[in-house]
């Protein structure tokens, strides 16, 4: 496993329902990031299609692997990079069952995927109307170490990040499409998830306006001690680079040993009480 590498937080604006254009933007950004030394480039949630596509999702969703992932695989192979992006994933076993999925591809091809577990369906969000929730946490093996994937609202539920950490991820990637009214929540929770897991956390948010929703950007790389190592601009397209050195985890993990101090028996109690809520 590589100890240190550069990550690019690629905070792009998407063209609604235009996969060809969004793949072009992804490729252009990956090439630019690679030139600056990035080995992992992360794009926002549903960056293949844009976030507010509503009923158009049925036409846009694709299986994985499928044409979109194959295109991004080629970009990854050509540039020798790992890429995380978001897309609506059509189940191969059904005709209109879709997941909100984060995909990780690398020089070796498709590494894996994560299907969003917590689908916001309140306020302006209507994800449960369109998506089936996932049931598996994802901690995916790469030459850059084990990478955990979570998506946006998952960050409100510490157990999702914690699961990836317990499966060995030392870098948790959170792709997001968060509108500006939620900024405070995410600025707080991203730091909290990194600290409580003593892990790196890369948060990449969408920018642009879709149906009146203004996505605030503000992507960030957070160190295991909660320090913000790189931060993208608010409200506009941006790409920032950060360096991940896994050796930085050790002193934090010894100073605040949250993993050592985990109490599994409490999780049974949590389950019991959550079922009775």
């Amino acid at each position: 496993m590589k100890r240190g590498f550069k990550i690019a937080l690629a905070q792009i604006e998407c063209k609604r329902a235009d996969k060809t254009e969004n793949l072009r933007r992804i490729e252009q950004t990956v090439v630019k990031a690679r030139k600056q030394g990035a080995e992992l480039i992360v794009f926002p949630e549903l960056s293949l299609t844009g976030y507010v596509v509503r009923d158009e999702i049925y036409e846009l969703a694709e299986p994985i692997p499928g044409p979109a992932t194959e295109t991004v695989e080629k970009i990854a192979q050509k540039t020798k990079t790992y890429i995380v992006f978001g897309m609506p994933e059509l189940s191969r076993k059904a005709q209109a069952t879709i997941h909100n999925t984060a995909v990780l591809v690398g020089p070796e091809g498709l590494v894996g995927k994560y299907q969003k577990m917590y689908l916001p369906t309140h306020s302006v969000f209507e994800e449960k109307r369109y998506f089936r929730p996932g049931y598996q946490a994802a901690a995916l093996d790469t030459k850059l170490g084990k990478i955990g994937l979570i998506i946006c609202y998952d960050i409100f539920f510490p157990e999702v990040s914690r699961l990836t950490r317990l499966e060995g991820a030392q870098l948790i990637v959170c792709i997001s499409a968060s509108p500006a009214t939620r900024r405070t929540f995410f600025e707080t929770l991203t730091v909290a998830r990194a600290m409580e897991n003593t892990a790196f956390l890369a948060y990449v948010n969408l920018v642009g306006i879709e149906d009146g929703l203004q996505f605030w950007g503000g992507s960030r790389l957070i160190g295991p001690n909660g320090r913000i190592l790189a931060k993208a601009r608010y409200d506009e397209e941006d790409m920032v680079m950060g360096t991940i050195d896994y050796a930085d985890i050790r002193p934090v993990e010894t100073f605040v040993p949250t993993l050592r101090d985990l109490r599994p028996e409490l999780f049974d109690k949590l389950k019991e009480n959550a079922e009775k809520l």
Partner: protein
Amino acid sequence: MELTSSALELDWQEVQARIERFIKDYVKKSGAKGIVLGLSGGIDSCTVAALSALAIGGKKVLGLQLPEKETRNATDIKHSIFVAKKFGFKTETIDITPALQAFYKSFSTFDPSDKVCKGNVKARMRMIYIYYYANKLNMLVCGSSDKSETMMGYFTKWGDVAADISPLMDLYKTQVRKLARHIGISKGIVAKPSTPALWPGQLAEKELGMEYEQLDLILYGLEHFMKTEEIAKQLHLNKALADKAKRRWLAAEHKRRMLLTAKIEYRTVGTDFRLPRDPF
């Protein structure tokens, strides 16, 4: 939650930026050449005109002054011109009195003593002029409704609320006042009493039954799912007043939503046809 005026405080710089981005983005995506809006000289239309000019440049913004003889107000006209000069957008003035009179005279059952029906004709007549210009010039109509009036249904259906975008609709009137001051709208415009100008002497606060400072806090409480008992208690007012505002808010939903139809087919316009609203 504490219902005080500080609950309505926002970062006005951020609000301004967000509204300007919204206007600019929508005009760009729609491919329109600019924005046309009704410019009454009141705080809402002056603020939205100024923000439009700041967002896309004054040359692409046209404010239409549409006075008519019963409600013509020299101060409002002066205020409109002042704001247009300050923010560098264009204006045109059309006296809609002849069109209104032609309408009144066109059928024998027109009742001039019914001021609400007659007033709504004025609001809809203004809408016709504004949309004519939008159509002719390939511009978008920018509405100036605020959240207080929209929640209370205090507008004319298909009249003053008719627009392609309504950038102030998520701000209560007292918030619009603060935003207006922040962007440099003069005190005289901000402080004068609001009126829909449907008949002489019409005043918004008188018709709504309370001052905006109080109404906005009631509505803010309702927005945050507070019960009217709690709202009344916190604001030291009669619960009946909060209940009345709540009833009015709920009763006006038909004015804010897409047309209702009988559900017959697989997917229905306005209910389960769910498509993005943004133009490509």
